[in-house]
């Protein structure tokens, strides 16, 4: 298994431009195996949707890629660098190239909206406070937040505004890759559609690669270039949603042709 991975990495030369390459990933909690031999490649500029039933380890996969929870086995290369072997010091510049939107927003509750957005700037950039605030406000406009919300606290925000603030924070360093953990969960359908549109336009304008965990079929059809399906402990199929509709895999078939799937399908076409 190990040899195979090595070969894969050496023969393919151009991985330094590929944002995410996961090979042979294995994740295990005690006796419970979540992933076994999971392979996934996300190429530049693509919007990848990751779907799968509850407990198939979508968030575990995300945490492994982000380095929040080291996997039991396998390799993860981000822009050609083996993150599992990277020192803390070398990790830092790499982390500035990624932005993450956590499921519940994960805003710092003691900071205002604009302060939250500027946290990565204070860590990585050396800017004057005035310009920093203006860049924060600029990002707020970019994600469609009203500017008079700048000095509100996270506890005063609605769910949609929390997501947008978290998105602005994820985008503040202009990352090359954006990770989204269920971005539209908890939003009303209109808000969710607007959020989808926002992500699509940001991705087009800023050349973003997007890794998106979602349950939202409408999102898949609206913005994803490809959809990776997690089942049986690995990525069973990765293809554009239109092609996945024809899949014979029982879970995928059920997913796209169940009552909700049919609904999104008719809307999408």
């Amino acid at each position, binding site marked *: 298994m190990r040899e195979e991975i090595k070969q894969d990495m050496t023969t393919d030369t151009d991985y330094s431009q590929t944002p995410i390459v996961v090979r042979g990933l294995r994740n295990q909690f005690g006796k419970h195996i979540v992933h076994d031999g999971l392979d996934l490649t996300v190429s530049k500029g693509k919007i990848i949707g990751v779907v799968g039933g509850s407990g198939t380890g979508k968030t575990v996969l995300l945490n492994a890629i982000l380095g929040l929870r080291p996997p039991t086995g396998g390799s993860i290369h981000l822009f050609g660098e083996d993150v599992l072997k990277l020192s803390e010091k070398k990790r830092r510049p790499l982390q500035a190239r990624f932005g993450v939107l956590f499921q519940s927003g994960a805003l710092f509750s003691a900071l205002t909206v604009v302060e939250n957005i500027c946290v990565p700037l204070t860590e990585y*950039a050396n800017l004057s406070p005035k310009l920093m605030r203006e860049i924060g406000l600029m990002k707020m406009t970019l994600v469609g937040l009203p500017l008079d919300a700048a000095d509100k606290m996270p*506890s005063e925000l609605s769910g949609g505004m929390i997501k947008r603030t978290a998105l602005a924070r994820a985008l503040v*360093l202009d990352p090359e890759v954006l990770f989204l953990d269920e971005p539209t969960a908890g939003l009303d359908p209109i808000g969710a559609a607007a959020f989808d549109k926002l992500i699509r336009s940001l991705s087009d304008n800023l050349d973003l690669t997007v890794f998106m965990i979602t349950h939202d079929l409408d999102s898949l059809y609206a913005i994803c270039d490809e959809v990776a399906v997690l089942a049986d402990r690995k990525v069973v199929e990765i293809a554009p949603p239109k092609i996945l509709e024809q899949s014979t895999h029982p879970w995928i078939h059920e997913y796209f042709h169940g009552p909700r799937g049919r609904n999104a399908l008719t809307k999408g076409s």
Partner: protein
Amino acid sequence: MPKGQMPKADFALKTSDGAEAARLLVLTGDWTATGLRDVAERLKKALTRAQDVQVDVADIGRFDTAGAYALKYALGDRASPEIFAGHENYRRIYELIDGISPEVQTQISESGRSASPLVNFLSGIGQKTLSFLDDARRFTRFLGETVTFIFLTILNPGRIRWTPLVAQMQRTGLEALIVVGVANFFVGAVVAFLGILQLKQFGVSVFAVELIGIAVLREFGPVIAAVLMAGRSASSFTAEVGAMKMNQEIDAMRVMGINPFDALVLPRLFAMIITMPLATFFGMMAGLFGGFIVVWTTLGYGPNFFIQRMTDYVPFVNYFVGLIKVPFFAAAIALIGCRMGMEVKEDVISLGKQVTSSVVQAIFAIITIDAIFAIMFNGFDF
């Protein structure tokens, strides 16, 4: 993306031949959030008097929205997206920022206007006063609710929730025994050392036994135990109740028809009132034991002598005086802890603040109650 150190954003100004006012601005390095530093301010300053600027972006490294904003910030309307002809990506980013920066500028100029210092000072005093009054009102209400629920519980003992009560008794009482015992042991020993040292000057070092007995039973046993409990239990009550409030668990209880007073406050209150006298008794015994060990080792009086002298010369009323205060300490600790938890707002900082002030207030309350009892017993001639 090239490896190694990236060049920071910079610029060079050249006077283009011929034209007087027109200047050529050459941008170099990475115009990104991490590479900008003070370049925007420097560029703005350098261009204050320039009317017309031509921009050359051929040598620019990377470019992002922050860089675009910095450029827009320095140049204002003197540059159009056309300067990025040939860099399609950069041009798109600049256009995006060009479109939204006026909105940001309006917001900046609006929020720039602030009230005069005098108005700020006066409104600050007003707000503090109002919040103090509000606090007092809520404290009164909390106290009233507590008393009401205590009476309701006495009238109808079926209301008592036994499982949380017993769990709290274990956590606040049983698990605190070791720390209460050890602390009192050392305090008893220290009192004995000091007493023997001072009384020796009068040749009556044997009176150290009475000193230990009265000091430990009357004051040190109860107060040391209460201060430890304030640090241990008041803080954990505030943190528990506060975290539940932040997580909307208290709202969930209310909706289910569970009164948070019944479920959270009363078990903690009763657990403290029941276990603290027991823990204090344990502490008193440990304190006496500590004193006895010192008397034995330095003066050579054995257990028989120590117990004999204790029973003969330390009136039993001291034990009673010490123990009667303890339920009041317990109630103060539990109520302050729970109330501070209920007042936690939705951010993490307020949780920390509330835990701190809960411990401080609880210890302050203990000392105040102790003083009140001291004055009362003085009046009764105990």
